[in-house]
């Protein structure tokens, strides 16, 4: 019979999806892998994922040496 699962659907580009998948390996957050652009995740973990994705993307953003210097 039909099941309804509560969660949060996240729409994202494939790159971000891979980031979330790698997070999932450390700690289970994904309820269902829907397709290339959508994931169903645990609602309580949304903020955690947001923060982690931000952090990971930040690390992967190119910064020139000049920009880093003053910091």
């Amino acid at each position, binding site marked *: *019979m*039909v099941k*309804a699962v509560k969660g949060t659907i*996240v729409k994202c580009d494939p790159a971000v999806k891979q980031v979330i998948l790698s997070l999932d390996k450390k700690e289970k957050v994904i309820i269902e892998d*829907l397709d290339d652009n959508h994931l*169903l995740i645990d609602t309580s973990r949304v903020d955690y994922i*947001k923060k982690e994705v931000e952090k990971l993307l930040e690390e992967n953003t190119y910064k020139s040496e000049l920009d880093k210097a003053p910091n």
Partner: protein
Amino acid sequence: MPTVIVAHFKTNIYEYLEALQKSTLDKLYEEPATCLAIFRLLPSLARQLVMSLLFSTQIMSKADLRQWIKNDKESLSKFEEALDKLQKLHIMIEQENKTIALNSSFKQKFQECLTGGGTHQSFGKLYNKPHRHSQSNSHKLPDIKTLDEHAKTKWEEILHFMVGTDRMNSPGASVLKVVTKANLMREKEGKGLEITNKGFQFLLQDVNTQVWAFLIQYLDLASEMLHMNVVEVLNFFFMLGSLELGQDYSVEGLTDTQRQLLDDLTNYGLIYRPKKSSKRYYPTRLATTLTSGNSAIVSNSSSNNPTDDDDSATEQGFIIVETNYKLYAYTSSQLQISVLNLFCNLQFQFSNMVTAELTRESVRKALKHGITASQIISYLTSHAHPQMKKRPALLPSTVVDQIQLWEMELNRLVITNSYLYKEFRTFADYEVVLKHANTLGVVVWSSDSKKMIGITEAGHERVKAFIKRKIVQRRSNGGDTTSSAGGTPAR
């Protein structure tokens, strides 16, 4: 485009006028200066239509008017738009017998405006009593520089107050009221006022837009709380727009309401008065450019007024943006610098300019404040240095694109709390539910191959009820209805 800003201002005051009662509009049209100002707010084609009808004595129908318009889609849509606006503002009236006529008082007063008849004094009465003779000796008119100075300090005082750079000089109470009413600032618990996101956006607008936005809020306030007559207030605003900079005008002939207005407008820097009790007032540049939009300043430089030197042009544009995201702002105004600081990394400050850089961090900071990418871009566009305006594309496209990309980057995750429906027994079941959910408009995501549907939290209850109903229905119909319902057997 700088035109965006102008259009923005126009729609603002325009929307306000549109919402007015017909009788109020009719009263407004009794002043030629107001007629002229409102006329200039109309779309170009509408202005032409008014002019064509203004001195015509013939009775026209809408079909007759349409004869003037080329028979192609673009022209006709422009024509419809023009007619629509004219009717909304009650300038053009479609009568019962399908004929179209100009509002009679508008027609009469606007004719007067062009031909120079009447005794309405709607373009301002000069103060020409005693000091006219004594002008040569001691009594000095404030020169344009003084007026500009006055306008600048007063207006920037308000902006400074909003940015919070200058807490010492709190502007008058009426300013505070307007600022809070417009939701540009809000009460912070116990600590006075704090700027809102809307306030940040306000700061990025050009001065003309700011002034109008402010005046419109003031108008609301005036009619609600101070019980002023809207018509008189508006007439006064529009009259200010037609005055000459550097001239002194007499308070004589002004209504009581308008005299009351003088005080507030002096506070905002639109008007300069030597003494509070003075019988004279001088409009500042903020006032005289009210109805012209900021484009007026650009063209003034080309018009042949050698006497009228345009130092406002320097006020107009001072920012140079390079393709490498470096930004040079030729300004020494603390206010402009703090506005720039909203979305730039300031680097060095010199006596007449600051250098700054648009970085990912600085722009993200602004975006998080609720300022949008398009606002940053339009600010940079409208304050671009005249040097930049010579180029076909005003801002470097790299910079524009990047600012937009940075905005998009912030929205890489779109999050919807929802319920995932899965394990439909048949494709038909899935299809029926999806169809129903679609009509409710609650589908977040669906997959035919997986037979799964994501439903928003809000839609969950209704979809659940639908499925229950269906199951009940099926049970009552017997077990074999599965195939008859959809026709596709389950796989």
